[in-house]
Structure formats: structure tokens, C-alpha cells
């Protein structure tokens, strides 16, 4: 599966709201990062919108899968558009890794409001031995509106 196909597959899981399957796309050492700004500063010592390791991402998903995550009641509906994909690096063999950068536009519909979230996304993907697909070792989401006053971002971008 090409990296491009994989990104579409990830988006499809997000748009279906299949959080459990989406979580399985991440490696145990994964980082899921949405900076407040353009992400050029050190995420450790700046506050971020999201800066989750796998465990915190898993907690986030498990809360969403429960019945009392009011932030998603009503649930967001999303459509992800992915474009401007660039494979920035492709290492094969031992320690194989692919770095992909893309632009995205997520249209979110919630409570009769449509909100557009545009941005640039950087994925670090590692191949899965014996499988066609990939796993996500890192996903960095740089929102165009990262420094703006944002609304309820409890859905997965």
C-alpha cells in the first residue's frame, strides 16, 4: 500500500468515527502532536493543543468510546480532504521509515455548525512486517488556525 493510500485509509477511519481501529494504526512509541503554533518550538516546554504519547492517546480514545464524553454528544461528523502530498524521506530495509507531508482540510459538522480546519500534516510511517500497510510513529498536525481562538476540538483531526 502506498503512503498516499494509507493516509486516505486513516482519514476514512476518522470520518467513520472508528476510533478503535484508528488507534491501532499507531505504534507503541507513537507521538500525536498538535501544536498551538506552527510547531517550530520545542513541544516539551510549550503548551500544545495535544501532545500525546500512545498511552495518553489510548486514554483519549477510550474516553470517546465511552458513553459520557459530552464533548462529542452530539458527535462531530467530519470529511477529511488530503492533498499536496510530498514523500519527504523514504528509508528501506533495516529501520525503514517514510516521512510524508500533506495538506488537509477537515470539514466538521456539529450542532448545525460547519467549521473548516485547514493545515499541514506530517506523518512518520513505519512498515508492518508481514502486512501491506503502515503504522504511524508520529503525526504532527499544524493547524492554519493553531493560534486562533478555537472551538471544541474533541474530535480526531
Amino acid at each position, binding site marked *: 500500500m502506498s503512503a498516499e493510500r494509507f493516509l486516505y485509509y486513516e482519514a476514512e477511519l476518522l470520518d467513520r468515527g472508528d476510533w478503535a481501529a484508528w488507534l491501532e494504526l499507531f505504534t507503541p512509541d507513537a507521538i500525536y502532536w*498538535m501544536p*498551538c*503554533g506552527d510547531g517550530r*518550538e520545542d513541544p*516539551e*516546554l*510549550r*503548551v*500544545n*493543543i*495535544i*501532545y500525546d504519547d500512545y498511552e*495518553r492517546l489510548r*486514554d*483519549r480514545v*477510550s*474516553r470517546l468510546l*465511552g458513553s*459520557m*464524553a*459530552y*464533548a*462529542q*454528544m452530539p458527535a462531530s461528523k467530519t470529511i477529511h480532504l488530503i492533498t499536496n502530498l510530498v514523500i519527504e524521506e523514504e528509508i528501506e530495509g533495516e529501520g525503514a521509515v517514510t516521512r510524508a507531508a500533506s495538506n488537509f482540510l477537515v470539514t466538521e459538522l456539529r*450542532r448545525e455548525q460547519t467549521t473548516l480546519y485547514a493545515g499541514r500534516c506530517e506523518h512518520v510511517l513505519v512498515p508492518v512486517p508481514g502486512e501491506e500497510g503502515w503504522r504511524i510513529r508520529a503525526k504532527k498536525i499544524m493547524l492554519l488556525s493553531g*493560534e*486562533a*481562538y*478555537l*472551538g*471544541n*476540538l*474533541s474530535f480526531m483531526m
Partner: protein
Amino acid sequence: MEAARADGLFDGEAVNGRMYTDEAVFEEEMERIFNRTWVYVAHESELESPGDYKTTRLGLQSVIVARGADDGVIRVMLNRCRHRAASVCQTPCGSANFFRCAYHGWTYNNKGELIGMPFQDGYGPDLDKRELGLAQAPRVAAYRGFVFASMNEAAPPLEEHLRHVLPYLDQTADSAPGGIALRAGAQRYAYPNNWKLQLENTIDPYHASITHQSFFDMLGKKMGKRINFKKQYEVERVNDLGGGSSIYHMDADFGIGELPFILLVFPNLGILGSQIRVIEPVSAGATKVTLYPMLGKASSDADNAARLRKHEIFYGPAGQGTADDLEVAFDRVAEGLAGAGDGARLTMRRGLHREQPDANGLACSHPSDEVPFRSLYREWRRLMTAGG
């Protein structure tokens, strides 16, 4: 505002839904509250060096908070050229010796003094530039690094105004090794409802175990022990601190921040968790909120990072606490109030039967009681009905 009108909006034990929806009330609040009383504008760590500035708002008015380049004095100036009213500063923070209006080139130093304009002879010999500096907040004062401003020349001294709040500002300033600094950036969120709802929601222990149940359930599982809110509330208290401010004393660590209390400083400041929270009214039905995590000046990077990670779990637009509040405390309340007109009378009686005067003679009660709300609206009423 006439007393009868104010009473119709808050009568001591209930609030009318119009309190949150009426644009005419909002306009009066901007004049009578944000243009009169002491309003939080900055922390000194945001203005460390001479020349440093940040922009913020007093009510709806954009202001520049700047540390004088030559004298180090912090001033609060309206971000409005005295000529044709264009804003002269377009960035949220920075360092500058001058602010130059791009319209006709009027130039102000960073103390707000008008020091230059092109084609000055157009004004004749009796031009006095001293009368054309950026309008200043007549009162600016800081306590332990917390900077407040008032547009009211006759405001009481800050420390008198914040009398019972001061010990908690002390505690906050001393809450980290070497003191605190706002150096980690900020999270920002906005919601389509009234600013006073965020004040309420900031110091509302009653909702913690309900709205945030899914979060505390998850936390309890991780920590291997669940918070027993009922038991905890028996030893904890909320206190009116006067002037619309209030405090919730926490007896245990809820796992979301460093401070052992939630402090609300009327009209626009919350200090809780590991953050300074600034509430910015936009209209009756719109509010902006900024969360500035506090780092320890002498803390290790590891400790500061841990503090930020804890904050991020609960707070911010994707925070697992904040997001639930955005839905429940703001979206659902907007839906409930839609079209209510004068018809929504919302009880605010919790604890009236059991609140007691504390050592300061101010109301104190069980954390789930609405002492903070009544304190807030009493001050609201005082400012909204004050003569002149």
C-alpha cells in the same frame, strides 16, 4: 442601570437568563465594569525587559501593555492613534521602542508619548504634542507580578480592592521554585455564549463529578484510586473573597494541576490548576478565553514539562475537561436560553441555608454551593447600579 432592572437580572437568589443574552446589558457591562474596576492585563514575566509589550483588551478596547524602554515602568495604553483611530500595534507581543501608525505616520514612543508626525506645520504653532499621546489607563498597578489596570482614576488602591485575594496571589507567585513565569505560550478557545458563564464554570465544584465524570473515571482507573468527591467536599470549602472574587480550597490533588485551589478574581481572571486564565468578553453571546500555563522559573525542564503535560490532558480546546465544558456549560446553555426572553429564572440558591461567615466575615460553605456565583453577581450589581 436602574436598581429595579438589576434586581430583575439578579435578585440575590436567582439570575434571569437575560443576564447572559442581552446585548444592551453587555454594553453597560463594558462601560460600568471593564471601564471602571481593576482588570487583570498581564503577568510581569510577559514583560521582562524594558521595551517588551503585549496587547490585550480592557472590555472590547484593544490595549498595549508595555514596559517603558527607558524607565521600565509598565503602562497600559489604548491601541488607538489619536488622529484617525487606527490601531498602532498589530502583534500580540514583542519588543519596541516606538509604535508608528501606518496611516499618517504619527509615531509614539513605548510610553505612549507622541514624538513625531510628518508635516507637523499643518497644525500651527499651538500644537502641543503632549496632549496627543496614546490614551492611558490612569491606574496601573502590580501585586506579586500580577498586573492590573483601571480606567477609573478614582479606583481604590489595588491592594485594598483585592484585599482578601492577596494571600492567594502570594501563594500562586510562590507556587514554584524561583517563582512563576508565563513562558510556555498559551491555549486559546472561544465559545458562543456569555463571558460570565466562564466565570461561573471556573469555580463550580458542583459540576466536576458530573460533567467531568468520564475524565475522573479514567483518571481513577489510571491512579488505582478514585476521587471520592462527597467525602472530599466535606472537608473543603468555598469562600467569598469580596469584590466578586472567590476561592475554592482543595484538600487533595485532582491530578490536573499544581495549585491547591481555584481562585476567581472578578471580572476576568482565574488562577487554577497550573494556569492563569483570562476571560475576554466579545459580545453577549461570544467570549474568548486564554490559558497561560505557569512554569517554575527555577524548576527543572523535566518538572516544567510534566506540569505542561498534566495541563494538556484536561485543558484547552482538545482538553478532556474543557471540551466537555464547551458542550455542556456553553453550547447546551445557549440552546436552553434561546428565545427565553425574560422567561428564564435560574435558581442560584445553593447553600443559602447553610453558608456561614468565615474569619473575614464573608460567606463560606460547602464546595458544591453557589457562594462564588452570589459573590460574583453582588459585585456585578454594585458596579452596574453605581451612581455617576
